[in-house]
Each structure stands twice: as structure tokens, then as C-alpha cells.
């Protein structure tokens, strides 16, 4: 196994129980800074539940989560985002009736905190900050070739562009770690190839680490340095892509008992 960079995100024996159901149990994830890590497994394996725990939507019932050495489990979603984790959602959750530009500006809101009075009186500080916000939003949209869509209503975008907009929105909060929940779902092969390339760019240009859930194995194998495999809430394997590809237990989990 090759050297991995310093840890950014670490989960230790992470687990959650809903009533009698142990949805996730004893999961040990590690994302190094600058890494792209995959989280795969059959449907219902608990991948999205892990995301929900990492981002504070659910509170874990056992184990811990830390970001850059600081415990974040039990914190509110807002707090966790402010500490540097942003995400996309499996069932796209854009601000549907707002424009594309506004979706991004909302995510940028903390980078222009000018206060109510300033906005009511339209003081110079407000104008400056708004101009800056707009510029930054357009820059980010440009990375994903969405500038031409700025004034469109988000819910009117084609599916693939909605997924991209969700990534832009997450990126706008200036995260250290980006969680992508099935970013290629519903995309055609051409769009998927484009996305693969974009994820590579995100890491290079924005220095962001990525943890992604994905069913498209060609994408996962191409861009992930390290892969974790979940099945029935438990971690059944981890390692480099080639090792995972040949792991008997993983093949069994995906194909079922033959």
C-alpha cells in the first residue's frame, strides 16, 4: 500500500441506530488532505447515511468524527459546513425557484457579511461586497460552464447541469472537504467523462479533498486513490482501486452469493 497524506477527515467506529436497525456500524474512514476517496457499496449499504452523519444531518449513536483533528460529531450542519465540509445530495436539493446565480450567491453569503443596515442604506460596503460576491459567483460558475445559465431558474436546468450546480454551490462555501453523493447519477457517458475531468480540476485548482459515493465504477476507479466498501452498514474492504477490483468479498457483495 502506498503512502497516504496527512489525515483531514477521520471517522472512528462510526455507527448509527434507527430504532432496532443498525444502519451503519463501526465504520472507519480516512480522507487525507488533497485526496479523492471513494465510498462504494450496494444500495442500502449505508453510504448516504455516513454522509448524513459527517454533515450533522443525523447524530451518530456511536463512534466519532473528526476534521483536521477536531471532533465534529454532534455539531449542527451549519457549524460543520463552517468548519470546512460541503456536500451535494443524492436527490438533488437545489434552491429550486431561485436563479442559478442566486443559488451560488447564497452559498457565498459568509464571504460578504455586510449587515442589515448597510444593505438597507446601500452603503459603499454593501455595493463593494455585492460586486465581489457576484464576481466570485460567476468565476465559480465559469469553471463548470454554467455562466450562460446564470439567470435561469434552477429547477429548469437539465439534470446534468443541476448536479453540476450543486457542486458549484458546495464549492462556494470554500470547503476543505467536499462530499459528493452520486455526482454522475443520471448523466450520459459524455457528461460523466467531463465530470471526471472536472473533479480532477477541483482537486488541483481548489486544493479540496473529495469523498464521493458513486455507482459508476469506471469513474470511481479512474479518479479515486483510495476506496472504502460498505455492505449492510459495515465496512467490508478498503484499499487502492486495483485491490478493490479483485477483492472477492466485494465482488460477492455486489453480485450476491452465487
Amino acid at each position, binding site marked *: 500500500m502506498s503512502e497516504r497524506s496527512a489525515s483531514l477527515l477521520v471517522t472512528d467506529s462510526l455507527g448509527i441506530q*434507527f430504532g432496532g436497525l443498525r444502519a451503519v456500524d463501526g465504520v472507519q474512514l480516512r480522507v487525507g488532505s488533497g485526496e479523492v476517496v471513494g465510498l462504494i457499496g450496494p444500495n442500502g449499504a449505508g453510504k448516504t447515511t455516513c454522509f*448524513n452523519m459527517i454533515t450533522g444531518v*443525523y447524530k451518530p449513536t456511536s463512534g466519532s468524527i473528526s476534521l483536521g483533528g477536531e471532533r465534529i460529531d454532534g455539531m449542527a450542519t451549519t457549524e460543520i459546513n463552517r468548519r470546512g465540509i460541503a456536500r451535494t*445530495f443524492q436527490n438533488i436539493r437545489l434552491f429550486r425557484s431561485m436563479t442559478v446565480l442566486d443559488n451560488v450567491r447564497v452559498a457565498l453569503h459568509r464571504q460578504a457579511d455586510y449587515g442589515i443596515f448597510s444593505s438597507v442604506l446601500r452603503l459603499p460596503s454593501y455595493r463593494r461586497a455585492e460586486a465581489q460576491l457576484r464576481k466570485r459567483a460567476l468565476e465559480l460558475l465559469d469553471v463548470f460552464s454554467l455562466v450562460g445559465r446564470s439567470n435561469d431558474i434552477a429547477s429548469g436546468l437539465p439534470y446534468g447541469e443541476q448536479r453540476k450546480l450543486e457542486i458549484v454551490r458546495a464549492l462556494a462555501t470554500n470547503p476543505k472537504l467536499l462530499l459528493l453523493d452520486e455526482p454522475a447519477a443520471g448523466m450520459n457517458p459524455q457528461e460523466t467523462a467531463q465530470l471526471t475531468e472536472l473533479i480532477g480540476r477541483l482537486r488541483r485548482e481548489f486544493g479540496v479533498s473529495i469523498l464521493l459515493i458513486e455507482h459508476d465504477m469506471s469513474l470511481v476507479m479512474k479518479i479515486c486513490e483510495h476506496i472504502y466498501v460498505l455492505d449492510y452498514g459495515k465496512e467490508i474492504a478498503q484499499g487502492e482501486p486495483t485491490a478493490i477490483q479483485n477483492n472477492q468479498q466485494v465482488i460477492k457483495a455486489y453480485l450476491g452469493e452465487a
Partner: protein
Amino acid sequence: MSEFLQFLINGVAVGSMYALIALGYTMVYGIVSLINFAHGEFMMMGAFIGALVLNRLQGTPLVVALLIAMLASGLIAVVTELVAYRPLRNQPKIFVLTAAIAVSVLLQNVARLVFGASAVAFPASFPEGSIAFDSLGIWIEYSQLIVLCLSLVLMVGLWLVVNKTKIGMAMRATSQDLEAARLMGIDTNVIISFTFFVGASLAGAVGVLYGMQYSVDPLMGVQPGLAAFVAAVLGGIGSLPGAMIGGVLIGVIENLVAGYLSSTYQSAITFLILILVLSVKPSGLLGRMTVVKV
């Protein structure tokens, strides 16, 4: 001490009526997650229709008038759901709630136009008199006894319907998971209508009892309706036993407040309880918490 016991008895008597109204709130909420704002008006309609039957058809036995009132309230609720709530089922919750508020005010004002704005005496009344317990220094009025007994009968009836009949089983299934119930072949629209019918007919029965004890007017459903709603929340919305316990508790608390402090603050106290429950334990005494799907 005897004073306290007396307030307690009065509270339980009123509270049993609140409980019956609260059952309707809680059943409807359990199935369609709607606070049926117009529920108190179904009670008012029951009172007016009971009075109408007794006035127009001289010699109708009270029990028959009660049953007609229950039937009529139930039907009004079914029609309300069909016309005003069902079309909005897939809309944001705010719209259904707005529709419910609108129906509530509309029914109040229609009743005001049809029956007049001022309070009128109900054509029948409870037998006068009471049973005194001299050693304790308290008494129970016949009217309170009748209200209590009738409430118990209705509650047992509801319990039998919900737990011992096929349609009751379908109701329980629908309140667990509407979509799953539909896939299991349950006609959930029928179940929703039936739930509204049952809930409103209980409210209609309370309308008659309330009318007999006090009087009948277009706004008579407002205060008991709100008290019963608070009772349903206190007991844990969606829970039938919770609604009954909550109803009795609210009745008792109101009477203690009125007895020891002042009756002017009765509804203010009721709402204070609501705000407290919601901020301390929103799931109520017997309610279950739900997990949001992401």
C-alpha cells in the same frame, strides 16, 4: 382540599369533552399531517343541527338528535376534506393549513348568517340536580355524570372501531405509512374520508353536550377547539390515548386556573402550556418522533 377536589371533578367533566374533540385532531393529523383548523367548527355545526332537529321535529328523542348531529358533522367534514383539502394534498403544507383556516372562518360566518349571531339556549337540557358527597364536601352534577358516561361510551366505541374492525386496521396502516398502505391495496382516499367522518362526528356529539350545558352560538367551537388542539399536542399528536389524557389534563388545568386565579386568563394559560410543550417536548407525552429522510 374539598375545593381542590371539586375543581378536579369539574375539570375532568369538561376535559372529557376536550378529549373527544382532541381525538379528531389527532386522528386526522396522524393520517394526513394536517392541523384541521376547522375541527372546532364541526363541533359547532353539530350543536346547531342537534338544536335544529329538536326544534323542528318536536318529540324527537334526544338520542336520535344526537345521532343526527353526529352524522351531519361527519358529513360536513367529509365534504370539507373533499372540496378544500384533497386538491391541495401535494401542495406545500402552508396551503392546506390556509385552506383549513379559511374553512373555519367561513363556517363560523355562514352559521352566523343562518342561525344568527347571538347565543341561543339549546332546546333540551340535562336533568337538574347533583349527587353530593357530604363527607368530602364535593358534589357531582347529573350533567357532569352524563357527559362523563357518554364520553366513555364514545371512546370505547372509537377504540373498538380502530382496533377491532377491518376499516380500523386500514386506518392504523394508513397512519403508519400512507404510501405503503396504498400499495397494499387500501383505498387511502376512503380511509381519509372515514377518518374525517369519525373525528368530526365525535366533535358533533360534543357540540350537543356543550350546547346542553351552556348555549349555542357560531363561535362556540373556537375555545374548545383550541383547548382540544392543545390537548392533542400535549398528549402527543397522532396518539389516541395521548389525546384522551391530554384532554382531561387540559380540562383540569383550566379549572384549577379559573378556580384559584381567574377565569379571564383561561385560554391564555392554555396557550402558554402549548408553547411550553412545544419548546420542551414537541412530541408530547405519548407521541413518537419522526426521522427526516434526506
